[in-house]
């Protein structure tokens, strides 16, 4: 059985997330950069910027991070590995990076993303922003900002966006 949270629920989660980020980083003394993790984190990041700036917080830079080469299960992925380019064309040093992903589960993707970011430079700080936190962590990683908490570790959570999937929704599956 799949539970579908429709577009308005997703929109609400986005607003909550953007509000959290704006409240948390309003008085940041360092410039902010939003970096989304491929593939849906980049779309989410792009949309978030608009919502954050509408709340009076300036986002100076944005980028997209591909973490494939940093995955800890690369050997199991084999020839299916889809390596795409990381597009961060600014020096991340001294920025506060808002690292964005759609669903936070085991924390392994975020671990890989942290390593990938550190290889690009030394940011002032990295803050983790996720649209959905579904629990089930396997590594000691926690988000700084969350749009929606769905504490069902036994259920799969998928986010769909108009840009890639033609529709906005959150799917919760057994």
């Amino acid at each position, binding site marked *: 059985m799949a539970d579908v949270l429709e577009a308005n629920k997703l929109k609400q989660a986005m607003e909550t997330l953007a509000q959290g980020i704006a409240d948390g980083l309003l008085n940041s003394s360092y410039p902010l950069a939003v970096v989304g993790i491929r593939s849906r984190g980049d779309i989410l990041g792009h949309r978030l910027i608009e919502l954050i700036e509408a709340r009076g917080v300036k986002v100076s830079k944005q980028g997209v991070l*591909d973490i494939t*080469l*940093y995955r800890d299960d*690369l*050997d*199991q*992925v*084999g*020839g*299916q*590995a*889809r*390596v*795409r*380019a*990381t*597009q961060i*064309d600014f*020096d991340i040093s001294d920025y506060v990076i808002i690292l964005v992903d759609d669903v936070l589960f085991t924390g392994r993707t975020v671990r890989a993303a942290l*390593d990938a970011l550190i*290889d*690009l*430079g030394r940011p002032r700080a990295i803050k983790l922003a996720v649209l959905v936190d579904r629990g089930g962590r396997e590594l000691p990683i926690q988000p700084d900002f969350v749009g929606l908490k769905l504490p069902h570790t036994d259920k799969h959570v998928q986010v769909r966006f108009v840009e890639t999937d033609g529709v906005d929704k959150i799917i919760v599956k057994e």
Partner: protein
Amino acid sequence: MVEMTKESGPANFVWQRKHLLGLEELSRQEILHILDMAETFKEVSTRSIKKVPALRGRVVVNLFFEDSTRTRVSFSLAASRLSADVIEFSAKVSSISKGETLIDTARNIEAMGVDVIVLRHSAPGAPHYLSRCVDVPIVNAGDGAHEHPTQALLDMFTIREIKGKIEGLKVAIVGDIVHSRVARSNIWGLTKLGAKVILVGPTTLVPKAIAKMGVEISHDLDAVLPEVDVINMLRVQRERIASNVFPSVEEYTRLFGLNSQRMVRAKKDILVMHPGPINRGIELTTDVADGKNSAILRQVSNGLAVRMAVLFLVNQAYRTGSE
């Protein structure tokens, strides 16, 4: 920023080869997949830390039975940027001189726990033979006059990067075609990607039979020059000059050397390529080699990205037990 080229492989393609032996056996899709992957790896070289952990804990051995400083260094650096450990093994310092065979040498190296063997050998087919005798991936870094797949891949990568496409382009390959592994791999690759290939050189070095590979043949560089988009000037091999298949150096340079007078006849945006090292003043004059149409140094930088992609792909296939 990486721009998407219109000739890209399908997004859901799964790479399954654990060896890269030549372009003859690769499909168009496989070639495009390597080129797309190389585009990603090119970005790594622009980072402050020019390294990714994709091959961490793996060992790549450069097994070179012929000298080739450039190719060897390029493979070493590519492996290092993927965080692999690299072992350099060249015939001069090895036990080859003591009569150890290629297979024994490779098996010994394999027994030490290497993960990829990059092989350069003077015998055509040596990598193919080796791939049937050992379990680990073999990457052909040049086998006699047979193939040099990574050179052709970096040539195609460079053409696609600068021209935006390969399909429909006219590419001339000029020089000693019959003894050239670079030419052979380029012919396989370019024709698969839809380019029109014209081989140019003296009759003794461009045999008629090679037209069977789906290419045109010409013995008149001046006639071909105005119509080509890319010209790949092969290196004149010094050891061939003494043999009777080769005209005198002066005659060769006069008929088939590229210089600025000749360049007047070429398209304004012709791309001049060379696999290196250049014999300046023989196949290519310095002003052309270093001129605005030259892509020669770009080829060298792109070689790194292409070899990273190849090492990554064969290792991925090996890890999941493909082939």
